[in-house]
């Protein structure tokens, strides 16, 4: 904390013409206001006057240092005036004051004592005061202070550690927390060392935070850099200058970040009741970036559910195959009792997938209050609660036709987040004393009701879409086999569990009953291609994917082979515009090949394990390979290279 960092150019007025102590105070306060140090000018001035009542802050030798600690101070700072004719400030030595510094400090900490102390050390030097009096303009005034400060506190510029603490703190975090988090940390540490600045970097990686910043370090540091692509615990930085930026700028321009963080032009982070609502820094992020960050928060939390559940379900198929149950049809995967155990445990994990996705998207947007409505919204999307059931007198049960799937869950996540933000705004009027009951009663109650009402209106729309699609398929059923196969396979890849996927799948299973097993072949292959296409791309086009995405690639081969299309959801959710069309193309190609080679499948589920009962299994494998490669190629072309 240097004087020159606290005293801004616009807060200095030389040769001021003030006749009385009151006028001097008015001028100094207005300079603080001009420099943007105050929230409430009147309150601050009152604090200054109250302090003067306890005894004049003039200390003799022409110097006065009025000061106040007050809630009304936004940023600690100084203002200064010189009064050539002097002003009577009730100094102990009776001398008129001609150099006046006014200190504005917040109510916490010893900051104002430190500022005072530092000013005194310099003002004790008569020569220094003479130079200040003679300064021609505010720039020269600041230069004199800077030079004197450098002389009195020579250790500052080269100082390795400030009272055992750090001048700068930083947090780095990327959505996946494997590579970029640590690259940014290393870049910042290296740059800081070169610049002679002490820094401590907390890495909020996938294995939990390392090198965690302590309360004391946060209190003592000058500024904090947050190079994060997902939300990190911010409430602890309340009242500190926080520079929020992306992980990639932490890696690419650490020096600029450090310079900016120490420039004093960093906005103070304000946390409201533990909620992440730093409007300043958020505004600096583009809309797209914010959406991406929320999305990734949901996807990264959902991923373990997909992998854990998916592998267990695949295991169920495997065990059932070994047990000789490949032919049982609809109960394949859980006919053998061991298979059933792992299969249903896997299903349990799967059933949380969409609620978790929506919940953590909402939590990223609205902080903790968002979690509940997000999860509930995701659950309703996954289970198809629909208003239409009520009208039909069936009570509000889940309707398989109205399951809006992962696209519905994405919608629910963002909607829940926004609803909670609006609720927070809407209840601003409530007295502070009621703050306690908002997060434990009002938000959960209203948030859940609102997201629930919204989703049961969204789901019937999905229901109509589903019915419409089914009708369309029935009509298509009369046209060419090839076209139907292509459309069905592509639909399987469209929303991975949503209305398109459901309509195609139901149509396929219904067709088995009618003996049209070639339709099921197209449906199943269409559902197998997306995870495999993505896995291929992560294996062979590494530059298009993040480290975490690549790491989960191999699991997707397994899920694809087992006809667990959901494996593709984390990828599709984080980049739907590129991933979904690529998957659709791949699936469509696979469906076409399957149809042309006359493949047919009598089993409704099971993926690779049903190939034994498939007609023309070699052709079917060929269809899978061709479709997956086609999908991977399109995906790789569409995806941008990662930095």
């Amino acid at each position: 904390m240097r004087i020159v960092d606290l005293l801004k150019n616009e807060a200095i007025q030389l040769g001021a013409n003030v006749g009385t102590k009151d006028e001097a105070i008015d001028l100094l306060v207005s300079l603080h206001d001009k420099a943007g140090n105050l929230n409430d000018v009147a309150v601050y001035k009152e604090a200054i006057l109250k302090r003067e009542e306890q005894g004049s802050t003039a200390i003799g030798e022409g110097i006065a240092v009025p000061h106040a600690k007050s809630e009304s101070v936004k940023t600690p700072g100084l203002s200064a005036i010189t009064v050539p004719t002097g002003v009577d400030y009730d100094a102990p030595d009776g001398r008129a004051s001609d150099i006046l510094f006014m200190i504005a400090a917040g109510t916490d900490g010893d900051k104002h004592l430190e500022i005072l102390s530092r000013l005194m050390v310099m003002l004790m030097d008569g020569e220094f005061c003479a130079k200040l009096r003679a300064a021609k303009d505010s720039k020269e005034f600041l230069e004199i202070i800077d030079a004197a400060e450098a002389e009195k506190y020579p250790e500052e510029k080269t100082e390795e550690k400030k009272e055992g603490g750090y001048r700068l703190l930083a947090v780095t975090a990327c959505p996946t927390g494997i590579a970029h988090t640590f690259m940014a940390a290393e870049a910042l540490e290296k740059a800081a060392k070169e610049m002679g600045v002490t820094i401590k970097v907390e890495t909020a990686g996938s294995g939990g935070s390392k090198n965690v910043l302590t309360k004391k370090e946060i209190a003592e540091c000058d500024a904090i850099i947050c190079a994060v692509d997902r939300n990190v615990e911010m409430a602890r930085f309340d009242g500190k200058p926080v520079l929020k930026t992306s992980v990639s700028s932490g890696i690419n321009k650490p020096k600029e970040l450090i310079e900016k963080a120490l420039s004093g032009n960093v906005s103070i982070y304000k946390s409201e009741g533990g909620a992440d609502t730093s409007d300043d820094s958020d505004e600096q992020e583009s809309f797209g970036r914010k959406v991406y960050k929320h999305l990734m928060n949901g996807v990264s939390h959902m991923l373990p559910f997909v992998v854990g559940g998916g592998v267990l379900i695949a295991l169920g198929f495997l065990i059932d195959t070994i047990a000789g149950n490949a032919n049982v049809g609809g109960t394949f995967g859980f006919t053998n009792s061991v298979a059933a155990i792992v299969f249903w445990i896997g299903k349990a994990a799967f059933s949380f997938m969409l609620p978790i996705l929506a919940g953590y998207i909402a939590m990223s947007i609205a902080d903790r209050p968002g979690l509940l409505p997000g999860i509930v919204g995701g659950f309703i999307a996954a289970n198809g609660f629909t208003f239409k059931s009520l009208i039909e007198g069936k009570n509000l049960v889940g309707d398989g036709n109205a399951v809006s799937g992962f696209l519905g869950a994405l919608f629910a996540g963002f909607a829940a987040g926004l609803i909670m933000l609006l609720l927070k705004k809407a209840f601003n009027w409530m007295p502070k004393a009621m703050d306690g009951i908002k997060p434990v009663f009002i938000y959960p109650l209203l948030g859940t009701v609102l997201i629930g009402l919204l989703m049961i209106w969204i789901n019937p729309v999905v229901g109509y879409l589903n019915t419409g699609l089914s009708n369309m398929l029935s009509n298509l059923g009369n046209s060419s086999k090839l076209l139907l196969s292509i459309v069905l396979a592509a639909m399987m890849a469209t929303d991975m569990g949503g209305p398109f996927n459901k309509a195609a799948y139901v149509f396929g299973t219904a067709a088995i009953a009618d003996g049209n097993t070639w339709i099921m072949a197209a449906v199943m292959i269409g559902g197998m291609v997306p995870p495999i296409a993505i896995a291929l791309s992560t294996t062979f086009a590494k530059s298009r994917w993040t480290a975490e995405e690549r790491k989960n690639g191999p699991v997707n081969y397994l899920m694809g082979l087992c006809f667990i299309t959901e494996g593709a959801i984390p990828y599709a959710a984080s980049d739907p515009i590129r991933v979904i069309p690529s998957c659709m193309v791949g699936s469509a190609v696979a469906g076409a090949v399957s149809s042309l080679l006359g493949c047919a499948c009598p089993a409704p589920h099971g993926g690779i394990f049903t190939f034994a009962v498939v007609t023309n299994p070699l052709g079917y494998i060929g269809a899978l390979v061709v479709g997956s490669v086609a999908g991977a190629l399109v995906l790789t072309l569409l995806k941008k290279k990662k930095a």
Partner: protein
Amino acid sequence: MVSKDFTVKNKMGFHMRPAQVFVNAMSKYPCDVTIKFGDRDINAKSIMMIMSACIKCGSEITVTANGEEEAAALAQAAEMIESGFGEE
């Protein structure tokens, strides 16, 4: 010469108001009064010297009076510091 050790109690430490009051009180005595803080000896009759030392709450200081009326000076210094200058 008499001296005594203290721990600064009031939350805001030796900020300007206590420093002023302290300096005014000590200036009435003819003896020299110094505050030893860390390895610095501070003239307790100079507000600038005291302020520049930045004595925060919880700091260990030693007040020494030397000369005429030294006992009285130290007694008053003790009373002021131990009462936290009338602050919290």
